[in-house]
């Protein structure tokens, strides 16, 4: 039998690492985050070692965001061939900017200063420790990797949308119609989707495998987004998490979100 897509990806990932290791034994780790124009084109697919972690996590500091900046969304949606339908009914997004009152309704009260209520808060898949979407998926098309990333197999999804009902964060989008005509510029390094499957943020696992940080993190000039291993005390996210109070969305549900907000 032909290998499934997941097996193929696994093999491809290992091969890439295998090819890279002998040539670059002492590559500086921080180069991994260097933003390179069109970093996804095969020519500059630097043979960097894959980034690995016990538990990938992200921190978001909306106070650092410039007003009206949408760089993270643009970079993510370009990288992942996310279509732009320009109508709320067909809408698909992996990241969006929402108001504090919608992201943290439990923390919102009338005496919050305007400097907080006006903040644009980036929201994306939380890559939960205990993801309800994975629990309900009847085909295991959505699954959690050992490093905590919650992934989608677009070739197995049957489009039942149970995961969309299960996600308490509204992080998932359905391809209600053929997305391809609505992708502004197709990135050949990442698959486009067909109509009828669900999609969401993948913490840029395809970039991590190539040793590059997520597109949104690189695109953010204000360093409002940080990404790293939450189990590694020297990681970027731990440097932030270790020194202040961080919030997670709807923690009372026990999903264990791994996107942390500092407000």
């Amino acid at each position, binding site marked *: 039998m032909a290998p499934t897509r997941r097996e193929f990806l696994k093999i491809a990932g290992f091969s890439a690492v295998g090819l890279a290791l002998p040539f670059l034994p002492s590559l500086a780790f921080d180069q991994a985050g260097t933003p390179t124009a069109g970093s996804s084109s095969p020519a500059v697919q630097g043979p960097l070692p894959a980034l690995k972690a016990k538990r990938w996590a992200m921190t978001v500091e909306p106070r650092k965001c410039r007003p009206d900046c949408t760089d993270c969304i643009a970079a993510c949606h370009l990288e992942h061939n996310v279509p732009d339908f320009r109508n*709320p009914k067909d809408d698909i997004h992996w990241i969006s900017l929402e108001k504090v009152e919608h992201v943290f*309704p439990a923390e919102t009260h009338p005496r919050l200063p305007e400097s907080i209520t006006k903040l644009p808060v980036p929201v994306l898949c939380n890559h939960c420790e205990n993801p309800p979407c994975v629990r309900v998926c009847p085909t295991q098309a959505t699954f959690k990797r050992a490093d905590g990333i919650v992934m989608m197999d677009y070739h197995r999804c049957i489009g039942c949308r149970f995961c969309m009902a299960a*996600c*308490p964060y*509204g992080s998932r989008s359905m391809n209600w119609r053929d997305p391809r005509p609505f992708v502004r510029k197709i990135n050949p390094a990442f698959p486009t989707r067909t109509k009828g499957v669900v999609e969401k943020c993948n913490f840029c696992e395809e970039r991590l495998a190539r040793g590059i940080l997520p597109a949104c993190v690189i695109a953010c000039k204000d360093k409002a987004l940080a990404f790293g291993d939450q189990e590694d005390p020297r990681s970027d996210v731990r440097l932030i998490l270790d020194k202040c109070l961080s919030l997670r969305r709807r923690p009372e549900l026990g999903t264990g979100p791994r996107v942390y907000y500092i407000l």
Partner: protein
Amino acid sequence: MLEKALRGSRGYGIWVAFLLLLVAVGFFFYLRQLDYGLGITGMSRDVSWGLYIAQFTFLVGIAASAVMLVLPYYLHDFKAFGKITILGEFLAVSAVTMCITFVFVDLGRPDRAVNLLLYPSPRSVLFWDVIVLSGYLLLNIVTGWTVLESDKKGVPPPAWVKPLIVLSIPWAVSIHTVTAFIYSGLPGRGFWLTAIMAPRFLASAFASGPALLILLCLILRRFGRFDAGDKAIQTLAKIVTYALATSIFFVLAELFTVFYSQIPGHMHHLTYLFAGLNGHHTIARWMAVSAATAVAALVLLIIPRARKNESLLALACVGVFLSLWIEKGLGLVVTGFVPSPMETITDYTPTGPETAITIGVWALGLMLITLLYKIFVSVRNEE
């Protein structure tokens, strides 16, 4: 026995042709949905389940209600139901067929439906729902058909069929319980996150299903040369009465918990459902009809003289069916999504093609009921 479905009166022929036409129209629009995608429906990112899944949920109840005939007859030897248990089983067969069809037309990638079996996922409630529904379909086809065939030959049913019939009793409870668990096990949807969901589903099922059965029996008496008997119909009417009262009680218990505790995440949904939220009133209007009809039907059913009057009973049954169809076949699914996790209110209105497909699936089910009941009546009248 199948050949008996092929011969019938002129009216029977016209009725079947009419249903076939509706099925064909539905199928035409389904082909368009296959081509365009589910975007042809009114569903959206926020309200990601709509009419199809709501019909599925409602019809699981109709299917489960066969147990209200099977249980009294086979476990308590209630003879009056002996004549019509097969009608209940055939109704279940048609209802489950509709359920499975509704789930199928709701899939974004129906070509991959077989993945449900290729990658069995015991942690997914939907996986279990597929198992229990197909099991229930099989049980009812086998038991209904075998018993009818024995009737035709004038022999008692074979001994092996009785354990299957007894098994179908807890199985009926399981299909609606598992279907309720699809909703009540989700952490982020306050409207569905309630332990009373499965009991509520069962109570409303045991009202709407037998109400439909009474209507079908009355139709058969008038047009089908088959009389279910007053005792059977009146007993069914009592079952509908108690189940409807229980169903209303459960809804009131839900309302109390939500509105006395005043937890906003739970309150918003029910406010949207019954009163409308921020100017969005469409569903609330439907629910007002549902509530009023339920109360009126309950009054008719509780008064013995009204219940024993065939016309009033028929009216009450139409009311019960309509009320619970609005509650489960419209309100229950959509309201779980409104407000969304981002606290936005997105209205959902089914589109024309979506409605045509829905009617097509209903017509398919009604056709199955018609054909199976025709076979049943022909066999019974030969005796």
